[in-house]
């Protein structure tokens, strides 16, 4: 049997990142993820890596850009306001087509907000928080174990597609202590060679990591190339979990922490005779439109549950495409929808009819 260990979410990210070969971490403190910064500060220098506390998030993500351009796995982490500051650079990393990993342990916003758990950076992460037509690969862990697994996956996918990947977590998943399978901390893929790395002219060949194309035509070509890449990522890398969905007549949709509340609610509703299931997007960008679209042909309705004012709701509606009703339960600023609230809401939507 594999060994289990008790770990905090943010620490699981840090350990998985180092084991995945992350050599460089640059970041600026912000709650609720400073433990990740501190873990990297303590561990990376001991294990042959680089840690620098940057003067700001602007500088932090730019240091990541500089280190990644030399072909080394590099990351930063922050929480909502800090991630907002990084947006110009994130767009630039996407246009430079560089592999970089960014962690957002989201807090309640807008503005400075509070350190309550929230999912209100969904749109910023998935719809391009910075300028231009770019996308990130956005992975949403729902447990400490998944924080580890998705971190190694993020490094792998970033390298594979030469694009920035983001771990979009919430303060619950970040702060929670949970028992995990130690194996989850280990990478499942080899790091590829990086012949494009800018480390000096070699054998008469130079390397350039540029972001601004030279001509108008080249900018159009870059946009076309990026879009083709995003289509390929959507085809190959869309990930989701289905929970008791197969025979369901009602489907909940939730990612991250609310998906755990949803599962508990489903078990209790099933005991009461309601055929309820869950679609849990693991990648929210690319989004599992197709599976939701298929289920929409058969179910009575969807209930989207989020810790925000309904940002993913638009994607659920896009996927359902009018085939059945889509309801919403949730709210921003740290509002929670625990299992009993979900149970009551589903029963109310059913008007007391078991289906």
């Amino acid at each position, binding site marked *: 049997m594999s060994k289990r260990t008790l770990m905090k979410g943010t620490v699981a990210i840090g350990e998985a990142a180092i084991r995945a070969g992350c050599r460089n971490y640059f970041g600026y403190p912000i709650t609720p993820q400073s433990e990740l910064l501190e873990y990297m500060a303590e561990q990376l220098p001991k294990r042959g890596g680089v840690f620098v506390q940057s003067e700001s998030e602007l500088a932090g993500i*730019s*240091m990541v850009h500089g280190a990644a351009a030399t072909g080394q796995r590099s990351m930063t982490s922050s929480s909502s306001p800090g991630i907002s500051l990084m947006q110009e650079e994130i767009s630039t990393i996407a246009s430079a087509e560089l592999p970089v990993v960014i962690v957002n342990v989201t807090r309640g916003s807008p503005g400075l907000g509070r350190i309550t758990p929230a999912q209100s950076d969904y749109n910023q992460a998935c719809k391009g928080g910075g300028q231009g037509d770019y996308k990130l690969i956005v992975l949403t862990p729902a447990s400490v174990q998944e924080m580890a697994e998705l971190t190694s996956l993020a490094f792998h996918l970033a390298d594979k597609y030469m694009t920035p990947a983001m771990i979009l977590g919430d303060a619950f998943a970040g702060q929670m202590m949970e028992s995990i399978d130690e194996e989850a901390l280990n990478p499942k893929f080899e790091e590829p060679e990086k012949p494009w790395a800018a480390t000096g002219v070699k054998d008469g060949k130079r390397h*350039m990591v*540029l972001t601004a194309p030279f001509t108008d035509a080249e900018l159009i070509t870059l946009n076309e190339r990026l879009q083709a890449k995003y289509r390929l990522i959507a085809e190959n890398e869309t990930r989701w979990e289905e929970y008791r969905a197969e025979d369901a007549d009602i489907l909940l949709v939730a990612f991250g922490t609310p998906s755990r509340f949803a599962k508990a609610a489903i078990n209790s509703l099933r005991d009461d005779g309601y055929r309820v299931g869950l679609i849990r997007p693991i990648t929210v960008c690319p989004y599992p439109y197709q599976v939701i679209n298929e289920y929409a042909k058969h179910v009575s309705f969807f209930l989207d549950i989020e810790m925000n004012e309904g940002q993913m709701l638009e994607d659920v509606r896009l996927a359902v495409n009018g085939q059945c009703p889509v309801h919403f339960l949730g709210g921003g600023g740290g509002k929670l929808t625990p299992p009993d609230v979900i149970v009551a809401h589903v029963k109310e939507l059913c008007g007391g009819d078991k289906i």
Partner: protein
Amino acid sequence: MTELYKRPDFILDEPFTYCPGCSHGIVHRLLCEVIDELGIRGDTVGICSIGCAVRIWNFIELDFIQATHGRALAFATGAKRANPDKCIFTYQGDGDAMSIGTAETIHAIARGEKVTVLFVNNTYFGATGGQLAPTTLPGQKTTTYPEGRTADRIGNPIRTCELLSTLDSEGYIARVALDTPAHIRQAKAALKKAFQTQLSGEGYGFVEFLGCCPSNLKLNSPVEAWEWIGNHSSKYFPLGEFKLPRSMQEV
């Protein structure tokens, strides 16, 4: 016959897109000469920044990483920390390094990052058409302060070398001018020291080049541009070495 001067062979055969009399071309050449003389071309990576010299990579055949506006020294920090055995330099304008990138400049120097900075002070935001820079001289006209810079409206210029030399980190800081052949020779010597300080592992090298942006000053010839540097810019920004690494200090 000895050859006293030649075009460094890794200046690419592309026409410079700079205006006549612009200082960027001179700094490009000095950079190539120094890298050539130090024999470090295969281990050098340049960080180019946003400004008129944004496409320096199109003129010089080195590895380049293109930074966002103001962030070049954060890029350089990342690249150098990840590769301590490589030579990393930034090429930045005065707007880039001392307006939008002031924090990155001060903190990289305060941390003593072992990188070399080519800081081209032409007293303007050249690329965007001649707006006020943190280095615009008192009275100098800009598109955003057409009556000329006054302290009561926007404060006085920042003397970058003086400011940075108050920081307790190890490095080389010098201000040079690009107006006369003698000054250009001094500029090259300073740039060489700025690279040597990085290569010896002692610290950073920071060279401020007083240049000119004749197009925005509406000057009529390169000669007028060079005269302007001597008559105006170097009057406000004194030339000299502001900090030396230990190995260059006389005992």
